[in-house]
């Protein structure tokens, strides 16, 4: 009687509704999505190319077109136009008032070196120079490198997650579902494989080849797919003996079909709960590798590389503080999301007393 009244109060909810009600996790999720979405369009906000230029009555869209040389806009040089200079030049001395340059929010790109005589990098933050978080030791904009570095890190983490989970879930499910010799064999393989010191292997590999985005995903997935297998093994082990699986078996469904149509959808909560923590793991792993300079090659924008610079130049605190704050903030968002998801799928909420 008492229990049923509680049930009436809590309307039956899907996981999404439950998740939405957990404000901290939900807002973190929305915010992170916004960050990722913004970073996808970073070229429009953080770029040395102008968004739009009007010159002698004609419109140009430098970001969307191929390289526009200086002579296109009446300058003397034959390489890519420096739009900041162009804007400054036209502002000071404009023969044709219809000429104008529309620059992005921060008019620098991630690899561009902004050096000036007498001012040696790193330069402190300044709104005047439009380096809102200062420059790094080579004179590149810290904010821009943070943004592009974030994009690389988050997509790296997501790609890594997809690859790892694909193999981890597949192998784990088969281990749990098939059992027997297959299970035993893979258990031993995974135990041995897990004991290989991952960091050393990555260091050795990246000293032999110059790592790129995909080769790093490959190397890290090679040593990261095992963690999911144990959870999926026990999940499918449990599900394998349920009636609906036996029914599917009886109807002649193949092993693949049973796993993909029945077992995985029923143990999806296990997978989803781990996703945020894997994303956080992916970001920190890439940052750590870049920090040790075994990650993505220069001049790719990277948080690890900024962290390294920050540690080496503690007397230029804007470098270390920018990257540490951003890193902690993103990891915090991901962790809040993770906690909320765990809460949503917490089996305690599913227990009904009769």
């Amino acid at each position: 009687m008492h229990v049923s009244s509680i049930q009436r109060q809590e309307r039956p909810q899907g996981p999404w509704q439950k998740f939405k009600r957990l404000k901290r996790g939900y807002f973190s999720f929305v915010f992170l999505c916004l960050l990722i979405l913004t970073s996808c369009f970073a070229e429009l906000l953080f770029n040395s190319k102008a968004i739009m230029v009007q010159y002698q009555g004609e419109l140009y869209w430098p970001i969307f077109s191929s390289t526009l040389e200086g002579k296109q806009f009446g300058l003397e040089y034959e390489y890519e136009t420096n739009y900041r200079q162009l804007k400054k030049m036209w502002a000071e001395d404009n023969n044709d008032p219809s000429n104008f340059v529309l620059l992005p929010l921060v008019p620098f790109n991630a690899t561009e070196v902004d050096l000036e005589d007498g001012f040696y990098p790193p330069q402190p933050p300044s709104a005047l120079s439009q380096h809102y978080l200062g420059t790094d030791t080579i004179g590149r904009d810290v904010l821009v490198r943070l943004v592009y570095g974030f994009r690389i890190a988050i997509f790296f983490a997501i790609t890594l997650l997809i690859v790892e989970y694909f193999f981890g879930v597949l192998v784990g499910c088969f281990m749990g579902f098939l059992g027997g010799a297959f299970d035993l064999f893979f258990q031993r393989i995974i135990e041995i494989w897990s004991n290989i010191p991952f960091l050393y292997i990555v260091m050795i590999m990246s000293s032999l080849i110059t790592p790129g985005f995909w080769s790093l995903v490959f190397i890290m997935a090679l040593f990261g797919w095992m963690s999911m297998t144990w959870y999926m093994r026990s999940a499918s082990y449990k599900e394998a003996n349920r009636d609906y699986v036996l029914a599917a078996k009886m109807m002649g469904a193949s092993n693949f079909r049973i796993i993909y149509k029945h077992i995985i959808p029923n143990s999806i909560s296990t997978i989803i709960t781990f996703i945020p923590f894997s994303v956080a793991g992916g970001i920190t792993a890439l940052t750590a590798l870049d920090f040790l300079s075994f990650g993505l090659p220069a001049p790719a924008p990277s948080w690890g590389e900024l962290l390294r610079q920050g540690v080496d130049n503690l007397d230029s605190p804007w470098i270390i503080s920018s990257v540490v704050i951003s890193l902690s903030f993103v990891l915090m968002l991901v962790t809040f999301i993770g906690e909320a998801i765990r809460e949503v799928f917490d089996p305690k909420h599913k227990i009904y007393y009769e």
Partner: protein
Amino acid sequence: MMKKIISTLKFIPILILSVKLAVAATLPNDLVWQTNTTSLEWGSADAQKGGLLRLNISSFPPTLRTVGPDSNNSFRSFLLDNQMSLVDMHPNSGEVIPMLASHWAYDKDGKTVYYKIKKNARWSDGLPVTADDFLFALEFNRSKDIVAPWYNKHFSEEITDVVKFDSHTLAIVGARIKPKKDLHYYYSLQPRAKHFHKLNQQWVSAFNWKIEPNTGPYKITKIRKGKSIKFKRKFDWWAQDEQFIRNRFNVDNVLIKVVRDPNTAFKYFERGELDVFNLTLPKLWHEKANGPMFQKGFIHKLSFYNQVEQGASGLFLNLDNQLLQDINVRKAIAHGLNFDKIIQQLLRNDYQRLPRFHTGYGKYSNDKVNPLGFDLKQAGAYLDAAGWNNKDQRGIRVKDKNRLSFTISYGNKLHEPQIIVLAEEAKKAGIELKPQYLESTSFYKNVIEKKHDIAWLGWSTGFRPAYWQHFHSDNAHKPQTNNVTNLSDAIIDRLINQYRESSKEQERILLAQELESKIAAQVVFIPSTMVPFTRSGFWRWLKLPENIATKSSQSLFNPFHPTQGGLFWIDAKSKIDSLSAKRSGKGFKTSTIINSDFKVIAP
């Protein structure tokens, strides 16, 4: 049984050697013995003995051996500097000066030098240095037991023989004819204490941590593994009153501490736990070295222009790369590299552009050879001439579906900023340079196997320009040789052969100059920057001679080097005064000295 056979076999070569010696050991009658007592000394008569000098290194040496596995570490120079040679070169005038040998004479054959070892020369354990130690040094360096293939090869192919005439007279026979003065350098041999070493297969492990007897001013007295190594001055050192050595090597103890992180090391220095600190890096000199200890005059700053051979550092273009085979492309790259920007805006105008492959070799350097400067118009003209007329979407030149793109490999993160700036600037010329960092050993492997497009590296210096190893076709298109550009040019080959075979100094100088301009014209090497000075910060109790250092000094406070080292001393009274002033918060006059006595004014 088997073991016995091997050990008897081992004796055979030694037996042969001794038979040969018994026959050959008579001195030619017509030798003209030479010595040098007239060159100026460079130690200061004001120097006081005593005190402790504290220096730092970044890692503890993996071994105390000076040859064999792991021996080529940064600590080795401390050990090698304490081993004297038979003769050396005067650090200012370049004349030959006596060291272990008092006299020397040249054979008519143009490749043999005779030496008389000083009778008072002693090892650190008190035993005399004799000709046998030199015979043993040759045997030692040729032995497979030291596991040092380069040494084995060098001392078998370059030095043909060492001949003993009596206990203190010997001759060193080189493989090729050289000008007289050059013989000392090319065929130099440092003695090894015969009574100390036992050559066998265990030598490498057995002698890892043994302190080898030396002939120089200091010996190791205390080792704290992983932490520090202490050298003590030999109070009864045989050479301390010898000409060219007296008034030098004044400090009683030298403590070399391990401090892994350079930032931490600098903090130690500012706290007075290290006496000197190298301030060559612009950031250190201009920014970090301005703290209160500098302002209050406790730490002095000194920059000293020197005239030393400059290592050939820069970009090496691999001619095995199809695109780089076109000289117009190479010239365009040279014109597309903005070294001026690096020097002005990154290196604070401290460094200078390296003019050519061999710089600082006196008359052997060809001062007329200068690098191609940053010039986008010229670069464009060369690329047009080579048929790279079109540009792709990113502004990079294209030709027959090829992009004008090269990887630029490097093995040291310190150079990354410069490479990134160069790559950014080169885009303006329509050339894409992709930086590729490789961990130092794999970088070395990559370059020596000639798998690079463009490599950013520097070669160490020698006594005379060395063309054969870097530019002769004998070494092109082969792995494990130093011709990393794969240059093979018949005219250059011919000149190099003449240069190597000539024993006349004037002829060699002319050949070297001609070679330098011929090689520069090929644009396979694009010089980067050089540092024509050494600069340090030091606590005020350290004193230097009036002239500060020598023309060839690479460091102001080298404690052991036979010719450049040990010029400074510690003023005990000044140290007491300084420390009490520091405690009471007083200060002295700030001191920053820039000495340009040996500065070469750029043409």
